[in-house]
C-alpha cells in the first residue's frame, strides 16, 4: 500500500472547545467535531509527514492504541474528512504554505 500524505485545507475554520476540536468547511458548511485522537491527527496534518508516521507518533504512542486499530481508524477518518474537502490527501508530500490555516 502506498504512503499517504495529509494536509489541512485552507477552506476550513477550526477551534478547540472544551477539549474537542470544532471544524467547519466554508465550501459546504459541514460542521464536525473531532475527538482527541482525530484532533491529534488533524494537528499533525502538515502535508509532509507520512500518515503512518503520524499514526505511530501521534496516536499509538500518545493514546496507547495498537497500530492496526489506529491505522484503520485513521484511514476512515481521513477518507471522511477528505470527502468533505477538509483534509487534502496525496501520494506525495506537498507544500501547505499556500493554505493560511494554522493548526488552531
Amino acid at each position, binding site marked *: 500500500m502506498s504512503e499517504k500524505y495529509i494536509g489541512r485545507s485552507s477552506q476550513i475554520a477550526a*477551534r478547540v*472547545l472544551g477539549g474537542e476540536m470544532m471544524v467547519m468547511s466554508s465550501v459546504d458548511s459541514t460542521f464536525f*467535531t473531532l475527538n482527541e485522537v482525530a484532533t491529534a491527527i488533524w494537528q499533525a496534518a502538515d502535508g509532509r509527514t507520512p500518515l503512518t508516521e503520524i499514526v505511530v507518533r501521534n496516536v499509538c504512542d500518545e493514546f496507547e492504541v495498537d497500530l492496526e486499530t489506529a491505522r484503520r481508524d485513521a484511514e476512515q477518518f481521513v477518507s471522511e474528512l477528505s470527502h468533505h474537502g477538509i483534509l487534502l490527501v496525496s501520494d506525495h508530500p506537498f507544500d501547505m504554505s499556500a493554505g493560511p490555516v*494554522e493548526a488552531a
Partner: protein
Amino acid sequence: MSLMQEMNERALELGVPLGVHLDVTYRCNERCVHCYLDHDDHGEMTTGEIKDILQQLAEAGTFFLTLSGGEVLMRRDFFEILEYARRLAFNVRIKTNGVMIRKSEARRMRDLGVEQVQVSVYSRRPEIHDAITKLPGSLKRSIEAIRLLKSQGLKVAIANVLMTVNMGEHAGVQALAKELGVTYTLDPTITPKIDGDTSILNLRIPGSELKAVFHNKDLVGNVEEFCAPPPRPGEDVMEGYPCSAGHTAAYITPYGDVFPCVQFPLPSGNVRRQKFIDIWRNSPELNEVRSIRAKDLPVCSTCSHVGTCTRCPGLAYMEGSMRGPSTADCEKSFQRTGILSANMLRQAHAHTHGPLIQIQPLAV
C-alpha cells in the same frame, strides 16, 4: 439537538465568547439614511492592535468572527487583517456594501476561505437604492460585486433593511436574490444613532406594513405557525436568558470598546487598556447582562409573549433599561399575533388612569 446547538450549549456552560463581531472601521463610502454610525475616524485601532485582538480572541475560544463596519474595504489593511484572521482559523463572515469589490478582491476572499459575504441591497431600482445610500451608481456596483463573489464560489447573502423609504421594494430584492442565486434576509430593525439621537427611528415602517410582512408566506414560510398566539410560558422560559449577547457573543468597536452586542452599546471595557479575556470574564457590565433571566424583567415577565418575543435587550437598553421592554419588539409581537403586549396594556392603563383634574399654578 444539532451538533452546532450542542457546541453553543457547551460554549454557554464554559463561558466561551464563541461569536465576536468586530467592526474594523466606522468610515464608509456610502451615507445610508438609516445608518446609526458616526463616520469620522476617531482613532481606529492599528493593524497591529487588531492582529493582537484576533490572537486574543482565538485564545479565548472564539470561532465565529464577523468583520464589518462602516465599510470594511475602507481600510487599506483589510486583507492583511482578513489573512491573519483566517490563519488563526476563524470562521469569517464579512459584511460589506460591495462597492469596492472587484474580481481580485472577490478571488482573494475565496482563496482565504471566507464563510460568507453579506451585501446590503435596499431596492432593485437604482433611484431608490442610490437615494438611500446617497452614492450614485452604488446599486449597480453592489450587484456586480455579488455576481463576482458568487462566480468565485463564495456564499453570498443579500441583507435588505426595510424602512419607510423602501417599503414596497422587498419583493423585488427577494426576486433579485433568487436570480443571483444568493440567500435573502429581510430586517425591519432601525436602531437609534450611536450618540443616542433617535431621529432616524421615524424611518421604521408603520405597524400595518410590519403586519403585512409577517403575514407574507414568501417571507416567513408557514404564516399560521409564525403568527400563532404564544403558548403559555413555562418555567424554562422564565429561567431562560434573552439572547447570546454577553453569554457567548461580544462586539468590539474600531476603537477597541467592548459591548455585549453590536446592537447593545453598553460600555463594558476597552481592549486598549485591558486584555479581552479579562473584560469578558470580569467586567461588571457583562456580568450584569449575564445575570438577567426572563423572570427578572419587570414588565416582560408578565407578558404573554415572553417565550416567543424577539425582545432585544440592546434596544431596551437604548430605550432606558436593559431589563425593560423594547417597544420595537412589542410592536413586532403585536403585529405578528394581534395580541397586545404587557407593555402596551400598561401604557393604555396609564393613559386611562391619569389624574382626572390637573391643577396648574396660575402664571403670575
